[in-house]
């Protein structure tokens, strides 16, 4: 066995670990964004009866009979609720249609059976339209057929605020339902803002630490790292204590008479809260790479620039700043990518206006259990970050990133 192979062998536990705990679940989840067999599996006869329907008017009698049979059977087995939930995600309102109507369909089936009536396609067409006139139009059937597609783009359409038009094309969702694209924008802008804020605050700090005598630098570095080692939740909730209406900052402002008691500033449960808390939490991610790059810049360069006649500002701009660019790039990229995926902090201090796209992904994973949509949103986010990375690589060059 060659030394290279042996070295690769040593990495095997890591590869296995990453595959099992990271790559596998990720591929699995991303698959859900375009593959959704649940309704197709639950209503196979309905789907095959709807396959030849042209999408206009009503489908064949066989489709009515198959749908009724499968609804009533699934209701009996208590699996229809689940299927109805899935269809409801394609067309809102279908859950109550299916659950409510199937209740009456089951009753009609029982009555017909007692009376010895044959339950064929014509019988069910009449019965279903009698129960709910909507079955006499194309909408619920289109919803059923769309939900029954195994391979589907609907999660991506929804994630981009588009929907299927009645003619089969695509159109933008009604205004009241357009939420994801604005959220993507908000997330992007907040992440950018937080990153810039971190840079403005972090740059002088990193500079100071890098140019302090070692003893003091260690203490300062510890001050940067100390909050870093504190739980994210503790730090975020501390901001609630500080910024809330009756919090320390507002109390102080009232005490010194800057604002009146009834003019307390809303600094939390809104975008301000998200900005402040995220900047605080992410600051070390910018300071540390910057610091390590700045440490490697000999002070002699700045001295040389000044002795050659540059003003301190010129020296900073033309000599020092360009040398710190790898650190700036690394820190900003790290901060930005972390910021774009943030959700605990906005969830706690963001109120409603401070929620980001990750909060929506978390909502669809944990609450609505619409994993297909969550996966589509996550895939778009991942795609966006990858795109940024590529752009960054083209513009700046990824090899110019330095972590010291």
């Amino acid at each position: 066995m060659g030394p290279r192979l042996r070295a690769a062998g040593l990495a095997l536990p890591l590869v296995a670990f990453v595959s099992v705990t990271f790559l596998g679940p990720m591929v699995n989840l991303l698959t859900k964004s375009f593959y959704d067999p649940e309704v197709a599996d639950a209503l196979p006869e309905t789907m095959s009866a709807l396959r030849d329907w042209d999408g206009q008017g009503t489908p064949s009698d066989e489709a009515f009979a198959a749908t009724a049979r499968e609804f009533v059977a699934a209701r009996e087995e208590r699996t229809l609720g689940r299927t109805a939930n899935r269809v409801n995600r394609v067309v809102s309102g279908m859950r109550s249609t299916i659950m409510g109507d199937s209740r009456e369909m089951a009753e009609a089936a029982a009555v017909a059976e007692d009376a010895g009536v044959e339950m064929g396609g014509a019988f069910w067409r009449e019965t279903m339209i009698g129960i709910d006139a909507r079955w006499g139009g194309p909408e619920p059937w289109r919803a059923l057929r769309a939900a029954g597609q195994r391979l589907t783009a609907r999660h991506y359409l929804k994630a981009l605020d588009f929907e299927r038009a009645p003619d089969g094309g695509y159109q933008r969702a009604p205004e009241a339902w357009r939420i994801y694209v604005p959220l993507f924008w908000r997330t992007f802008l907040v992440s950018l803002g937080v990153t810039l804020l971190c840079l403005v605050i972090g740059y002088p700090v990193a500079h100071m630490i890098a140019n302090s005598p070692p003893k003091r630098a260690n203490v300062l570095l510890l001050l940067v790292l100390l909050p870093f080692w504190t739980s994210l939740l503790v730090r975020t909730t501390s901001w609630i204590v500080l910024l809330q209406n009756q919090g320390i900052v507002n109390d102080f402002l009232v005490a010194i008479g800057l604002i009146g008691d009834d003019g307390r500033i809303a600094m939390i449960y809104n975008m301000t809260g998200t900005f402040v808390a995220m900047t605080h939490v992410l600051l070390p991610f910018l300071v540390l790479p910057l610091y390590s790059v700045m440490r490697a810049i000999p002070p002699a360069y700045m001295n040389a620039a000044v002795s050659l006649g540059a003003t301190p500002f010129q020296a900073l701009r033309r000599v020092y700043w360009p040398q710190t660019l790898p650190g700036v790039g690394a820190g900003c990229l790290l901060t930005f990518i972390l910021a774009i995926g943030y959700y605990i902090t906005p969830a706690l201090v963001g109120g409603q206006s401070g929620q980001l796209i990750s909060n929506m992904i978390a909502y669809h994973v944990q609450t609505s259990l619409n994993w297909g949509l969550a996966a589509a949103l996550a895939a778009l986010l991942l795609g966006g970050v990858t795109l940024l990375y590529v752009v960054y690589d083209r513009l700046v060059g990824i090899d110019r990133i330095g972590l010291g």
Partner: protein
Amino acid sequence: MKSSGAIVLSVIVVAGCRLAADPPPGSAPGSDAGERSITAVSYGGSYARACVKGYHESFTEETGVRVDLADFQGGLAQVRAQVEAGVVHWDVVDLSVAETVNGCDEGVLELIDPSILPAGPGGELPEDDFLPEMNTECGVGNLLFSSIFAYNREILTGPPPTRLADFFDLERFPGRRGMRRSPEANLEMALMADGVPKERVYDVLSTPEGLERVFRKLDTIKDRVVWWDTSAQAPQLLADGEVLMTTAANGRIFNAQVLEGQPFVIVWDGQVLNRGQLAIVAGTPRLEDALRFVEHAARSESMAGVGRYIAYSPARYSAEKLIDRHFETGTEMWPHMPTNPANMKNYLMTDWQWWADHGDEMLERFTAWLAR
């Protein structure tokens, strides 16, 4: 350089924090193999405490089966997830009737044979003794709770709000409002405050124009609302002066008033009553103990036990008679109960069938509205 090591280390630490903040659901710490136990899930805080004192302890005493507590914030999401994954940690869950009916339709809850329901202390038959519509195929009624709104007398010092419409009146009562991040009760309250008679609330909600109207009403206060997720947050927001008024589950405000001495006042006008049930997660390996637990909880003494700790009305008439004073403070309980006639001058009973059919759509619509 040392610092790159520090970065790697810090990233690991941060990642670790995230994992630590999210423990696997239902993992019971320190459960040993020999001891039997079940996991009962409810809303935590003062309500969970009332359940422990009210009937969990007596259940363990009687059967030797330990009851582990888990918290959630309502909804079927975790139940669905556990059943779908085939890993059931939870056994008995506190749900509203609409949720139980949905869970039953989806097969994620066990059917409960009504014959397990015990008779009352005076031999009252369960079918006569339970309040109307308390029991369903998968759910056994345990209490009635109410969504009300409340204010803090120390902060709202002017003329007090007395009607539901005052909650939406930013002109007379300028200030932030706390509301639960959920369509339930909020939609009904908004419509009633907008002048819809309570008998017509669900008819109006069933029409597209009615829905438009609800969200237009909610729009009028939207940018002044602080949304809360856990029931315990509501009294906290009120105590901190973060909001001028908040909607809340009435028991939480009661707890703050009586146990913490907070100067909170409940406005009962337009209260939205709802039925709470216990349900069993489908496929639990501890079904037998879970059924015994539900049977125990359905006894009048158990319901009265809860009612002596927190102001939620029991689901049985015979239990009402057993409730008098708070077990610890000696406070008279009935003035605080949502079903006290004095508090029911203008109330709405939640239509569980409507919510069972429309709950998912309303949640979707509400979430879209919130995100805009």
